[in-house]
């Protein structure tokens, strides 16, 4: 279970300029749910995701994931928690453009220093799952947008996390590729993964397998 308790995030640009990105948010998500956070740009969706993933700390309140108070974890432990439990798909994919597909996907495994056989096994499985095996040795910058996104998803899934977080995953995709991404989400949901997607793409709002659609406006739940 994921719990956001009295979550507030204020960005202090300087002493006289504060931006309240989130204002006292309280939410709960169950294991296996697909949640859509919808709202306009600047509404606070991405801030919620970064707090959920432990990429930043709240100003007030906390995030509890599987009974772990992740907002209270020191950075080293947070990184470990994130590595084992969370897969993040970024809007701009955040891949390393000069590295190959398999090198990008293998990156989250490097700190664990895995056995070569296990590494190859995991890579092969995840590349097949997201239909990118044929591009295994291609340099990422030479791939199309859809292929880059599949690499990003494969990288997020390589550690088999329970929680998948996607920030505007279809912002750079055409409709066909967006629908393909939605099919991937359905596939992931069927394997009991908790998926949280921040988007303002209307394609997501009428899906029958979405459990919750949460509207965020000016840092508050509507």
């Amino acid at each position, binding site marked *: 279970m994921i719990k956001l*308790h*009295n979550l507030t995030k204020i960005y202090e640009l300087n002493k006289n300029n504060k931006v309240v990105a989130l204002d006292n948010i309280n939410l709960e998500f169950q294991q296996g749910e697909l949640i859509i956070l919808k709202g306009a740009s600047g509404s606070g969706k991405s801030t919620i995701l970064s707090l959920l993933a432990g990429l930043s*700390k*709240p*100003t*007030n*309140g*906390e995030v509890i994931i599987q009974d772990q108070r992740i*907002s*209270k*974890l*020191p*950075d*080293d*432990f947070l990184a470990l928690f994130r590595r084992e439990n969370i897969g993040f798909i970024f809007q701009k994919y955040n891949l390393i453009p000069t590295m190959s597909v398999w090198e990008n996907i293998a990156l989250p495994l490097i700190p664990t220093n895995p056995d070569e056989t296990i590494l190859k096994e995991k890579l092969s499985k995840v590349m097949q799952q997201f239909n990118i095996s044929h591009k295994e040795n291609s340099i990422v910058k030479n791939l199309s947008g859809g292929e880059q996104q599949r690499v990003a998803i494969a990288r997020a899934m390589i550690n088999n996390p329970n929680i998948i977080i996607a920030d505007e995953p279809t912002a750079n995709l055409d409709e066909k590729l967006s629908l393909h991404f939605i099919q991937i989400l359905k596939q992931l949901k069927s394997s009991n993964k908790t998926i949280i997607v921040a988007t303002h793409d209307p394609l997501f709002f009428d899906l029958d397998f979405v459990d919750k659609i949460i509207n965020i406006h000016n840092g508050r739940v509507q």
Partner: protein
Amino acid sequence: MFLTPEILTLQILNLIFLSFGTIAFILSIKIALKWDLNATTKLQYSLEKQSFLTATIIKYIFTLKIPLFLFFIFTLDKLSNILPGAMCAAGVVNATVYGNYLLVLKVINIYIFGFWLVLHYVDIKQPTLPYTKQKFQFFIVIYFLLLIEIIIEYLMFSSIDISKIVNCCGTLYSSAATSFISKLFLISNQTILFVFYFNFILIIFSYIKKYKQLFSIVNFLFIIVSIISLILFFGTYIYELPTHHCPFCYLQKDYYYVGYLIYILLFLGTFNGLLVGFSTDDILTNNSFKKSIIFNTLFVLLVSAYPIVFFIKNGVWL
């Protein structure tokens, strides 16, 4: 104050340590007073960030201060070339009223700085940061020791008069000395050797029996006993001179800088030994037990080797 590159280095570093140490001191007070890890308030999140910054500052100050002690001794040793009458660091230490106090305080401080570093290490190893409050409370106290050390060091270097003749170590470490050191020479070699090896046997005994408190106490005694033994007995075999008892001369090139190795081994052995008595962490306790035994044994072997080698070579004792 006369300035050599070494004194200048030490003074500039002290100024940096004092500046950053004062920032860390102010933040430590705030953290010590208001830290509550369970709280999810703006203040607590801000303190968590500040505690990381503060601990990093303190960690770097102490990590540098410990090896700088050796550089301080090296500086004193180098100054002995300038001061008339001084043959080694001992003459420089005794050139001012501050020298001996500073040396004792520096030795105490390196143990205390080491303890803080271990406490910090144990704290950040756990996600609940169980010792954060204690480590910053501890630093508040240590800050004053650091401050006093820096002030005395400045006073010592600034009051050295290079036109004044100072005593050499041969005079300072002899039965004719006017200080308390002369009283040490009332102890016979047999007595000090018995105490030294008996103390070491007690260390081994308490290690085998895993008596934590006893191990810590005998390690504390071992610091004092070892220094006295070095002055009274082992030093004379390093110099191969029965009348030379200086605990500083063997830091010089003539003796292959062996003094540094001797004191580093003694520090590492006894520091880990003292740690055992304070540690509540099983892994840390076991590691400290082992490290203490290893370094203390190496220390005993090293200092014992000198008289044995001397006897093998010459067939007589000094």
